[in-house]
């Protein structure tokens, strides 16, 4: 690829996503397999050609940069494109084509955010991710998914507005929209606003509640996509803009602990894994906060490894949900005989996240822990080590044990339904599992892609012995403590309580006192002030309708007629559809505005 020829991978995905609904059966399968591959090749070609590409002048005074390729964006672009292939293979058996369309738009948003070089472009792709992923939640027909989707959209829209506010304030102060590293020495309000907006997508405490809420309600294939893209794209943007900010160390370590504690109590398998994302992203955020070359390398490596093993875990959990329709540990259990392949994949994912030697977590997680020790952050280092013990306890032992071994809580119907997933899901899991092993066994594969040169080798005696002790004695502790973490038929309150319960209280308040005051006021107004006004208004409306309009050309009447017909077509009472249509319309308008 020469430097003149720049084909944005997001553009390819968006075109692919638009073609998908027009195709059928074999053609669609062909597209589903080929488009992600083309995107992957495009990303690979782009990554060999670092520099600034795709600079567009927008409305005279703005410069939009669509293709900033450097060592940091290259590794994230690579893994996102790879994940797109795996996720699409996993979703091949999904009949509802909108899942794949939404997923591709979502990946396009992620790739766009990774390769962009200015805040306007970032914001555009950022919002594309938020909206597209909402549809991945809505594609699930399960009870509660609709509400979860709304909450997800609400939180992300709020985050987007905070981000935009930061961009605008920064533009006012600095005079440009360049997406570069911000200075920790001189912080302003905009620094914190931008950071908060990015942190919301990284699910940093206290802006994290949307993640377990939405990911546990997304459609099976949708959750596999969601677990990979939103948080890791946010980690990339944090690494780009906020490397070395001390506050990120504290928040990262705290969210690592917070996530693992909730995962320990959780009953829903996908929610448990979602809590573990919060915990694992905590490592990356802490790594970004430490900001040394080793720590940034660690954050990138861990994001890379995390996407592979977490998607593997989500795919295995999704296979269980897909087969049985159940997602609670209290309604499952003892499935090892029924779904042995799924168990193997879950175990591979589990030992990868737990940083077993020869698996992917081992080579990435230890970089961040070592970086924190080397930067003399002893407490952070020990706390992150503690979380890594907890991760093995939860993902490596608690989840497989209560899902596949031990006592069975399955109903007869569930037992009958439980079978290993179809070939495409198995293939996707095999690829992800193979990559987990490859990353763990063949170090140059990952380390050569990292933004800084790597001198670190995880396979030293000290580290291996430390890991062996952690593994052996966590198993021992689990044998004795497993009764204390037995799943129960409960949910765990989190900070989303404030908008879920708070919203309900507000509704009660609104329908009670506020409504009655409003009604009383309205009555008073009607009897006293409105009578005269209404009479005169009625006359003028009659006059306008029957005299003036007839004279002119019946515009009002014809508009009303068109409006009614449009209403019938567009507003079927389903607000998601209306939203979708208006978003498409807005996008077309925007495109027309830019290009014409």
């Amino acid at each position, binding site marked *: 690829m020469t430097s003149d020829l720049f084909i944005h991978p997001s553009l390819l995905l968006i075109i692919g996503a638009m073609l998908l609904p027009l195709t059928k059966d074999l053609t669609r399968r062909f597209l589903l397999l080929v488009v992600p591959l083309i995107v992957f090749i495009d990303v690979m070609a782009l990554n060999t050609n670092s520099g600034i590409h795709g600079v567009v002048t927008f409305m005279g005074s703005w410069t939009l940069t669509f293709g900033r390729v450097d060592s940091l964006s290259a590794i994230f672009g690579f893994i996102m494109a790879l994940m797109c292939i795996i996720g699409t293979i996993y979703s091949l058996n999904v009949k509802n084509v909108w899942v794949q369309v939404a997923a591709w738009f979502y990946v396009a948003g992620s790739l766009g955010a990774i390769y962009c070089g200015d805040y306007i472009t970032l914001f555009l792709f950022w919002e594309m991710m938020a909206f597209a992923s909402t549809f991945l939640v809505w594609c699930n027909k399960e009870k509660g998914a609709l509400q979860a989707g709304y909450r997800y959209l609400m939180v992300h829209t709020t985050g987007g507005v905070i981000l935009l506010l930061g961009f605008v304030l920064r533009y006012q102060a600095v005079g440009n929209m360049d997406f570069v590293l911000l200075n920790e020495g001189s912080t302003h309000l905009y620094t914190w606003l931008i950071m908060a907006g990015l942190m919301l997508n990284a699910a940093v405490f206290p802006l994290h509640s949307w993640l377990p809420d939405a990911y546990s309600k997304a459609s099976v294939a949708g959750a596999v996509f969601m677990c990979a893209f939103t948080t890791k794209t946010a980690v990339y943007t944090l690494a780009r803009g906020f490397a070395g900010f001390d506050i990120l160390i504290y928040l990262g370590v705290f969210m690592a602990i917070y996530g*693992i*504690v909730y995962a*320990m*109590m959780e009953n829903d398998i996908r929610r448990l894994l979602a809590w573990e994302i919060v915990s694992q992203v905590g490592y990356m955020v802490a790594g970004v906060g430490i900001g040394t070359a080793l720590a940034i390398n660690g954050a990138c490596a861990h994001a890379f490894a995390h996407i592979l093993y977490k998607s593997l875990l989500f795919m295995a959990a999704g296979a269980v949900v897909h087969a049985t329709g159940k997602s609670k540990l209290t309604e499952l259990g*003892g499935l*090892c*005989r*029924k779904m*042995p*392949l799924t*168990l*193997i994949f879950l175990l591979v994912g589990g030992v990868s996240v737990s940083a077993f030697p020869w698996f992917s977590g081992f080579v990435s997680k230890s970089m961040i822990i*070592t970086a924190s*020790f*080397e930067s003399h952050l*002893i407490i952070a*280092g*020990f706390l992150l*080590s*503690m979380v890594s*013990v*907890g991760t093995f*306890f939860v993902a490596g032992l608690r989840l497989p044990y209560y899902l*596949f*071994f*031990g006592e069975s809580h399955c109903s007869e119907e569930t037992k009958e339904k439980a079978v290993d997933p179809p070939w495409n899901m198995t293939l996707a899991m095999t690829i992800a599992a193979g990559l987990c092993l490859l990353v763990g066994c063949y170090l140059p594969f990952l380390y050569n892609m990292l933004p800084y040169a790597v001198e670190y080798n995880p396979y*030293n*005696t*000290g580290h291996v*012995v*430390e890991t*062996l*002790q*952690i*593994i*052996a*004695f*966590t*198993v*021992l*502790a*689990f*044998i004795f*403590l497993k009764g*204390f*973490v037995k799943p*129960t*038929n*409960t*949910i*765990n*309150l*989190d900070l989303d309580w404030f908008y*879920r*319960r708070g919203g*309900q209280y507000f509704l009660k308040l609104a329908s009670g006192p506020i409504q009655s005051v409003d009604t009383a006021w309205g009555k008073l107004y009607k009897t006293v002030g409105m009578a005269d006004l209404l009479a005169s208004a009625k006359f003028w409306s009659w006059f306008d309708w029957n005299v003036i309009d007839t004279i002119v050309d019946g515009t009002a009447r014809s508009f009303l007629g068109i409006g009614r017909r449009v209403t019938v077509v567009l507003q079927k009472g389903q607000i998601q559809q209306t939203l979708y249509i208006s978003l498409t319309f807005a996008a077309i308008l925007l495109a027309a505005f830019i290009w014409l």
Partner: protein
Amino acid sequence: MIAEFFEKINRNGLIVRLFCYIFAAGVLVYTLFFVHHAHPHTWLEANVPAFWTIFTLIACVVLVGIARLYGAAGIKRKEDYYDI
């Protein structure tokens, strides 16, 4: 075949536990008597024998303890908590 193997593991908890004990003991012996070249980050690792064993056990108890206490403090609710 794999399914039967897993089933066997599931049935024979005692053997699995025994295997885990032996593995843990082996690791501990190896750590205490055969490892001399480790590069410790901290004073604790250098001077406390089998530091990570002690650390792991304490970490498990602490995390499980926090989760239990936190859950009992009112975080764990019935599933229909948000359904009104």
